[in-house]
C-alpha cells in the first residue's frame, strides 16, 4: 500500500510539467497579447506597446519566459494578475469557494440520485423504471450543458418564475463573506440579523438550477455504472450465499451486493471530479456564477497569462489530488488491492 502511494506520487511530477507546458503554450497560441486586449479599439503606439511588454517580461524569447515561469513556480510564486494586480493565489482562494460549493452540491445531487436510480434499476431489471432510467441517462449524458442550462432557465426562471436567473444571492441581501460558502454564510448571517432571515432560502434557490445543470452528466454516468456494476454483482455466488443465510433482502443488497458494486463506481465518481471542473466553466458562465470557471474564461479573454496558466494549474492539481485520494479509497474498499504488494 505504501509503495503504491509512492509510485502514484512519482507519476505526479511529469504530469505537472506537462500541464505547465500545455497552458503556457496554448494561451500564447491565441492571437493578441494582454496589452492589445487592454487597450482595445483605441490605437496603440508601437513604442508604448513594446515598453509595456518589456515591463511585463513578455518581450523575452519564449523559452526564457517558460523557464522564468517554472522557476517562479518552484519558489511558490504564482504571480499577479496582469489586469487586477492582485496575486493569483488570493484571487483563486476568494473565488474558489463559490465553485466548490456548486461542485459539492452537484456531486451530492449526482451521487445520491445516481446510486439510487442505478440500484433500483438493477433490482427491477427490465421494468419500466429500468428502461426509463437507462433512456434518461443516455439523454442526460449527451446533453450539451449550454443548451440544457438555457432550457432550464427559460422554463423554471422565466416562464414559471420559480428560480432566479443568475448569481449566488439576491443583491438585496448584504451577506458578509465568512466561509465563502453562501449557504453557510447566509445561515450564519440570518442567525445574527433577523432581517436576513430569507437569505438562506434565497441562496438555496440560486443553487438549484446550476446544481442540476452541472450534475446532470455525472448523474447519468453514475446511474449507468451503478446499474451495470450492481447487475454483475447480483449474479455472484456470494450474493446467493448471503440469501441462503436467510438475510433480509435489504441486507443482501446493501451490505453484500452494494459494497462490492461500489468499487468500480467509486473510480467513476473520482473521474467525474474532472468532468465537474470542466462543466463548471460553462455552468458558471451561463448562470453568472462568480467562481473559478468564470474567472478563467474572463482571464482567457483578457490574455491574463498568469491567471490562465496558474489558475488552470491549480484546478488540475485539485483534480489530480482528488483522483489520488479516490485511488487510495479504492484500495481501502477492496481488500484484494489493499493486500497486494
Amino acid at each position: 500500500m505504501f509503495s503504491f502511494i509512492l509510485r502514484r506520487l512519482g507519476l505526479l511530477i511529469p504530469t505537472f510539467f506537462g500541464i505547465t507546458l500545455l497552458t503556457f503554450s496554448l494561451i500564447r497560441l491565441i492571437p493578441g497579447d494582454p496589452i492589445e486586449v487592454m487597450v482595445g479599439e483605441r490605437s496603440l503606439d508601437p513604442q508604448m506597446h513594446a515598453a509595456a511588454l518589456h515591463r511585463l517580461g513578455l518581450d523575452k524569447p519564449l523559452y526564457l519566459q517558460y523557464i522564468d515561469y517554472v522557476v517562479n513556480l518552484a519558489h511558490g510564486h504564482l504571480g499577479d494578475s496582469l489586469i487586477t494586480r492582485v496575486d493569483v493565489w488570493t484571487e483563486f482562494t476568494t473565488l474558489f469557494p463559490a465553485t466548490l460549493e456548486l461542485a459539492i452540491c452537484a456531486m451530492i445531487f449526482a451521487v445520491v440520485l445516481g446510486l439510487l436510480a442505478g440500484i433500483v434499476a438493477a433490482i427491477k431489471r427490465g421494468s419500466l423504471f429500468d428502461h426509463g432510467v437507462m433512456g434518461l441517462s443516455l439523454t442526460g449524458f449527451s446533453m450539451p450543458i449550454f443548451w440544457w442550462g438555457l432550457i432550464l432557465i427559460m422554463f423554471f426562471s422565466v416562464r414559471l418564475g420559480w428560480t432566479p436567473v443568475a448569481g449566488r444571492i439576491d443583491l438585496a441581501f448584504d451577506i458578509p463573506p465568512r466561509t465563502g460558502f453562501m449557504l453557510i454564510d447566509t445561515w450564519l448571517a440570518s442567525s445574527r440579523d433577523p432581517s436576513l432571515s430569507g437569505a438562506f432560502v434565497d441562496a438555496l434557490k440560486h443553487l438549484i438550477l446550476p446544481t442540476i445543470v452541472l450534475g446532470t452528466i455525472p448523474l447519468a454516468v453514475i446511474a449507468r455504472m451503478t446499474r451495470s456494476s450492481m447487475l454483475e454483482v447480483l449474479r455472484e455466488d456470494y450474493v446467493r450465499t448471503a440469501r441462503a443465510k436467510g438475510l433480509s433482502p435489504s441486507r443482501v443488497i446493501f451490505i453484500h451486493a452494494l459494497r462490492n458494486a461500489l468499487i468500480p463506481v467509486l473510480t467513476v465518481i473520482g473521474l467525474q471530479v474532472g468532468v465537474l471542473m470542466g462543466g463548471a466553466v460553462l455552468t458558471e458562465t451561463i448562470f453568472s456564477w462568480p467562481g473559478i470557471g468564470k474567472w478563467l474564461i474572463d482571464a482567457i479573454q483578457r490574455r491574463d497569462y498568469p491567471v490562465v496558466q496558474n489558475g488552470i494549474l491549480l484546478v488540475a492539481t485539485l483534480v489530480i489530488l482528488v483522483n489520488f485520494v479516490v485511488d487510495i479509497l479504492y484500495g481501502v474498499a477492496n481488500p484484494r488491492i489493499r493486500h497486494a504488494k
Partner: protein
Amino acid sequence: MSLLEISNLSVQFGSEARPFNAVEGLDLSVDQGEVVGIVGESGSGKSVTMMAMMGLLEGQGRIVADQLRFDGKDLLKISARDRRKIIGKDISMIFQDPMTALNPSYTVGYQIMEVLKEHQGLRGAALKQRALELMEMVEIPAAAQRLSSYPHQLSGGMSQRVAIAMAIACKPKLLIADEPTTALDVTIQAQIMELLVSLQKSQNMALILITHDLAVVAEVAQRLAVMYAGQVAELGAVPDIFRRPFHPYTEALLSSIPEHSKGARRLNTLPGIVPGHYDRPVGCLLSPRCPYVQERCRLERPALTVDGASGVRCHFPLSAKEVK
C-alpha cells in the same frame, strides 16, 4: 413423519410465452438425521430443486408443488419473512465453488458471525466465542487468526470449511451440500467429505448430498435419488439400488463406475444426450436413449411408482433376473 417432504414440485423457467420445466413432478422425502444422495447428469435439475426449496429462485423461476413441507411447515405457504427465519438456520446449504461463495469484501469472521447475529441474536463476546468454536469444529488451523482473514487469503479447501462453518452455525436440521467437493483438489475432496460426514453424525442432522460421485454415495448415503431431465427416475435405499437398479438410467449410471462395469455386458454409458428444454419427448424422457425402449415408452410418460421406500419411473423396470 419425515423432516422434509417434497411432493410434486415443478420449477419453470423461461418467458410466459415459452416456458420450460427444469424440474417436473418431483417427489422426495428426507428423514431426521438421514443422508440422502442425489445424482444425475448435468442439467437434470438437482441444484434447481434445492434452490427452489431454499427460496433462492425468487424472481427467476415459477415454483409449484403440492407441498414443500419442512419440519411441519409448508415452505410455499409461509411468508418470505417467515421462510427466512428457517433458511440459514434450520436448513442451510453449501455450494460447489467455495472460492466465489464467500463475499470478498468481508472477513471470514464477519461472515460467520453474521449468521449467528441474524438467527440467534448473539452479540459481543459470546458471538466471537461461538464463531471461534465453529472454526475449530471445521478444523481450520489457527482459527483465531483466521477469523480476520479475507476470503482471497484462503485456499479452496479452507474456504469450503468456512462455508461449512457458516452453514452449521445454527445447528441446522438439514444441510444441503451441492457438489461440495467438485471444485477442489482430489486430495482435499476426501478431507472435506470426511468432515461433512463426521459433522452430520455428531450434529445428527439430515444431509442431502448432491454429487456426481457414486462411490461417495455408496459410502455415506442411506438413500439415493437418481434424477433425469428434471424428474426422479429412481429412488431407494442405497444398498438395494446398487445391488439391483430398476431403472435403465440408474443401471447405466452404475455401470459407468469402474468397479461396477467390470463384466458388464452392456455399454457403460448411454448414447445420446439429455433432451433439450423445448424438445422433451411425449413419452418417457429417457425413451430416445433407452436400450430397452418399447412402443409404449414413446407414447406414454411413466409415473413414479412407489413401493414402500423405493420408487421407479419406468413402464418396464428391469426385473431381477436381467441383472446378474
